[in-house]
């Protein structure tokens, strides 16, 4: 599904990504871990088109997508969420979700006045948004400004917005960061459920190892810009090298 080949990214001589190779399989929940400064968020930013790679390839379903901009990647079915939620604060929760719908007819200036046409699509989007709000327990907040939501609710909204666009693959940057443990477990439960019921693929940065252990199919460990260990969660967690990089031994 998503394949990264020998990816490099330098920032003014500093090699943040130093030859990353990985592959995320369809319909799996894949975790990415690594100590602070190992390059996880940079890897996401390069895959999601925020930065151009210095060298290397990113392939989505076999097609080269490195160097494409976020909006182009979105159209190819790749959506990402942010570690620190970036809601549209002065739009309601419902509008935040609706906005994320893809290929909206009424978003073109000349179509604004073709009311009947865009309203039909809007209706479909509305149904979908309601379903997602149900799923994420956000329904009661539908008409609330996103700026008034709590940290945990914003995390859910991030996930919800990403779901709105029927992506093929979702990149989640610490979806449960700063969220209380009970909610975190619920959130991962949802992710697991979505992967199984909706043919979705997840690639997740997370530092709650115990959560990832229970909910992911496969894991990659990034350290100093390279993947040093990969495999099933149990195997990865028992790997001495993983503990060592976290303790700063390598």
């Amino acid at each position, binding site marked *: 599904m998503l394949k990264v080949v020998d990816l490099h990214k330098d920032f003014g001589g500093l090699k943040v990504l130093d030859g990353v190779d990985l592959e995320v399989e369809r319909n799996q929940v894949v975790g990415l871990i690594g*100590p*602070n*400064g190992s390059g996880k968020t940079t890897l996401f930013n390069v895959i999601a088109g925020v930065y151009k790679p210095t060298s290397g390839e990113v392939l989505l379903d076999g097609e080269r997508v490195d160097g494409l901009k976020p909006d182009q990647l979105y159209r190819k079915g790749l959506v990402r969420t942010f570690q620190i939620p970036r809601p549209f604060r002065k739009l309601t929760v419902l509008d935040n979700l609706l906005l994320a719908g893809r290929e909206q007819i009424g978003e073109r200036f000349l179509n604004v006045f073709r009311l009947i046409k865009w309203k039909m699509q809007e209706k479909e989007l509305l149904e979908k948004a309601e379903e997602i709000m149900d799923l994420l327990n956000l329904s009661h907040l539908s008409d609330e400004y996103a700026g008034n939501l*709590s*940290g945990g609710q914003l995390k859910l909204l991030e996930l919800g917005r990403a779901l709105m666009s029927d992506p093929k693959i979702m990149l989640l940057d*610490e979806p449960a*960061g*700063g969220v*209380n*443990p009970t909610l975190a477990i619920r959130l991962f439960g949802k992710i697991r459920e979505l992967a199984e019921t909706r043919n979705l693929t997840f690639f997740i940065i997370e*530092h*709650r*190892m*115990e959560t990832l*252990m229970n909910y992911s199919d496969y894991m990659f460990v990034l350290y100093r810009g390279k993947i040093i260990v990969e495999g099933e969660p149990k195997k990865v*967690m028992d790997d*001495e090298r*993983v*503990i*060592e990089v*976290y*303790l*700063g*031994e390598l």
Partner: protein
Amino acid sequence: MLEAKNVSAGYGSSVVVDSATVEAREGDVVTIVGPNGSGKSTLLKSIVGQARVFSGEIIYNGEDITNLRTDQIVRKGIGYVPQVENVFVNLTVKENLEMGGYMIDEGLEETMNEVLSLFPELTRHMNRKVSVLSGGERQMLAIARSLMARPRMLIVDEPTANLAPKLVHKVLAKIRELAEAGYSVLMVEQNAKKALDISDYCYILASGKLVFEGRPKEVLAHEEFGKIYLGLRT
């Protein structure tokens, strides 16, 4: 000397640290370790007034300093070295030290000489802009700068973050040296093993909670240390 009792802290309304108790005794290097996101930096920031303490209290030399402003805390004799942006990049090394000693009215010169005797490597850069210093030198300067206010206790946030392995060793050795010179140090580190080598006592934080504490030897000897550290065992 410094005690944080049952501290819950965070930003805005979100609680990042959940009822943690740590103590730093005079002349010791005390280290808080834990993986990223464990809340260790937030705990440190709550002590120096850069994050909010929701409950619990922070006592320094018998005085309650909970939720005071950073400059008030610094005036009480606690030096603080933040993790990032911890030097004035547009100032020279000497000017950075002078700013560190901004509150000193007399004997700035002597204090600077004392501090420089601990950091002799800085003397040859005195009139250079900080922007030309290496990462390791900057870290040294940041620590030296905080010493200029003549603190008795130093609070250091991840002094080895983003440093090359060789420099990690150097900076940590310097911190040990400071403890030998009579300063008390409370620091947060991600380079757990190396930090423990120079520490007198340590705490492990995972997901905002203290999960283990003890002398470094006991901690390192614990067979499940790695798993505890990663929050896989409690």
